[in-house]
């Protein structure tokens, strides 16, 4: 078995023990080294704590240590014999919902903590909502602090049933729950003797078995052009290659492709992988998420911001987009705001036309239009564009359905967006 990579994001309320669980995962997979552990032991002792506080492994900033909370997304790495993990450790505080969106945007699996004493709370609903909106395919629920409820099976079953009911509302079909104690290490990596009634996997066993990635063979080609390579020197005097990373699908030499937004059609005549000695290795085919360089049969005008797509399933080109956005800046989003919209490698000027609805984070219900969306608010907006934009349904093609709204003046990222299916908005399509 070749070593693969799983990206996951954690989420949980303050004091659910999230940092402790991450610390436990690192510790029990032997990803924590002696000097890091010594530092944790030293600080824990100085604070008068009886046992080393594993949460200190992850709370790295001064303010986090002072307040005992996680402020910003941190990325952690651990690996087992068959898999490497990139873990986005995201804060649970309400005011940091944007950080959870950040962590979840690249994750294939969301790890959501629930405190067994408190059950499903508002934050749990919010985390499931964000997970569903962001199209994270797998959800693992860690029902933590089971030791504090006497390892009560009835309590666990009730929580899991409630989690599943909420998850179903956000189109999350796969939820795997594990009863555990992050503090004591039960069912995290090692099986617990306290849960004889539980016959599912430990948390790590589950992480090890989740299928990674989507099969590119089932998706249409999406290749946002990053840079045009023109060496203009011997022996590559006439070389003209389009460098990029496959956002979806596969490509083979001889494939007919469509360049968007122009809609021109041509054929792929070469797929190159650059080498450090300045040569290239030629490939017969490539698949997402490989970074390659494509050569095309016709000398048509292709530049950064264009999308090379499957001619059979090219996607939509539009001047009007609707989609869910999460505001990640202190500046609100209001109708008539002039912004930049970035999707793939393309950036176009845009006008926020209307806020269609807003997700009420307390009830997790959608309400009617409001006048503005503030920091951490989630809502659906309609946006008019100054130029043609190829875009996909986020829930079908995550990489080419995602967009950013950017402040034109100072370049700040204002909102994270997920485009609706094209039939939801009016716009010319090819």
């Amino acid at each position, binding site marked *: 078995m*070749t*070593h*693969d*990579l799983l990206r996951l994001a954690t989420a949980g309320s303050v004091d659910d023990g999230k940092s402790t669980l991450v610390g436990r995962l690192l510790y029990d997979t032997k990803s924590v*080294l*002696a*000097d890091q552990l010594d530092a944790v032991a030293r600080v824990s002792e100085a604070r008068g704590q009886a046992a080393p506080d594993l949460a200190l*492994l*992850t*709370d*790295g*900033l*001064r303010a986090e*240590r002072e307040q005992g909370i996680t*402020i*910003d997304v*941190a*990325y952690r*790495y651990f690996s087992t014999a068959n898999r490497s993990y990139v873990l986005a450790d995201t804060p649970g505080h309400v005011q940091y919902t944007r*950080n959870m*969106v*950040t962590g979840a*945007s*690249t994750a294939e699996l969301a790890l959501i903590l629930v405190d067994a004493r408190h059950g499903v709370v508002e934050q749990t609903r919010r985390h499931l909502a964000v997970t569903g909106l962001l199209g994270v395919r797998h959800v693992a629920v860690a029902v933590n602090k089971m030791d504090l409820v006497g390892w009560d099976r009835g309590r666990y079953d009730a929580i899991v049933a409630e989690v599943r009911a909420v998850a179903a509302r956000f189109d999350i079909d796969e939820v795997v729950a594990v009863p555990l104690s992050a503090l004591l290490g039960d069912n995290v990596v090692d099986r617990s003797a306290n849960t004889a009634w539980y016959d599912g996997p430990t948390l790590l066993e589950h992480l090890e078995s989740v299928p990674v990635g989507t*099969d*590119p063979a089932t998706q249409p080609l999406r290749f946002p052009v*990053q*840079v045009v*390579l023109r060496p203009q*020197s011997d022996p*590559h005097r006439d*070389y003209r290659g389009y*460098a*990029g*990373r496959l956002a979806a699908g*596969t490509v083979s030499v001889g494939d007919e492709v469509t360049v968007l937004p122009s809609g021109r059609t041509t054929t792929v005549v070469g797929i190159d*992988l*650059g*080498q*450090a*000695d*300045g*040569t*290239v290795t030629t490939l017969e085919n490539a698949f*997402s*998420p*490989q*970074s390659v360089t494509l050569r095309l049969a016709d000398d048509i005008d292709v530049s950064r911001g264009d999308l090379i797509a499957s001619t059979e399933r090219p996607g939509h080109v539009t001047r009007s987009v609707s989609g869910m956005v999460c505001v*990640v800046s202190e500046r609100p989003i209001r109708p008539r705001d002039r912004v930049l919209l*970035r*999707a793939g*490698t393309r950036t176009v000027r845009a006008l926020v036309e209307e806020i269609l609805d807003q997700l009420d984070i307390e009830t997790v219900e959608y309400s009617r239009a409001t006048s503005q969306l503030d920091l951490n608010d989630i809502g659906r907006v309609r946006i008019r564009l100054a130029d043609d934009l190829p875009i996909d349904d986020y829930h079908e093609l*995550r*990489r080419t359905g*995602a967009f*950013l709204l950017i402040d034109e003046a*100072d*370049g700040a*990222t204002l909102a*994270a967006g997920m485009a609706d299916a094209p039939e939801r908005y009016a716009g010319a399509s090819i």
Partner: protein
Amino acid sequence: MNQHFLNHLDHLESEAVHIFREVAGEFERPVILFSGGKDSVVMLHLALKAFAPAPLPFALLHVDTGHNFPEVLDYRDETVGRIGARLHVAKVQDYIDDGRLRERPDGTRNPLQTVPLLDAIEQGRFDAVFGGGRRDEEKARAKERVFSLRDAFGAWDPRRQRPELWDLYNGRHSPGEHVRVFPLSNWTELDVWRYIERERIALPSLYYAHERDVFQRDGMWLTAGDWGGPRDSEPVEARVVRYRTVGDMSCTGAVESEAADVGGVILEVAASRITERGATRADDRLSEAAMEDRKKQGYF
């Protein structure tokens, strides 16, 4: 078996190449920090791959503390000559000589790099600066974005970082600001070594076990040299050692090792119970938040 399967190192490589190309597409004057250390060597290797068969579209920048290992400087110059790159060198010694910086009592020059670095960025009008930093190195680094916006003073404010969503890296910045870019963010020390093995990348010799004159200070084996060691109370011994990191000679320690080739190093790193920085960097021992504090001042 899925034939469209990318293994872990291929994944990391594809991501890094994507990051280099995004910077080439979005910035006017990017520069790569290149010290001859293993992370910057791997970073340069990936940058060359990202644009081949076209030449590297970036210049290189090195901040020379004046206490660099001679074999690393030789390696740096040999590499720059081989690939035909342009190299800018900013020298801490120049700043000490003309009084703009003062030598610290402990003799370490690592923290002094910040001023020449920021000056070089300003003078070169560089708007994107690639660094080989990895998030696994240190807990403050674990919070760093791939694209890290710095203000006109080069400062990093962890509370005001731009959220980084999907792989839509936002490189927009105002005049005077610049962006630090970390293509190796998601790599670990072991990934770097496995990639060096796979790609047969040559490194400066001091990464591999060799006999060297060293002396002990604060539990670390330091190389004797003009930079100020050893003191009379610090006897010099010949020992078989290697370096896990190469920085300023005054604060980078060697580890005792028998690993004389890349395969040996991989076995050693995989089995090590001590992190790279914990084993070999004196400046990170200054306080719990030493790295965070330096980064806030503009350090990498």
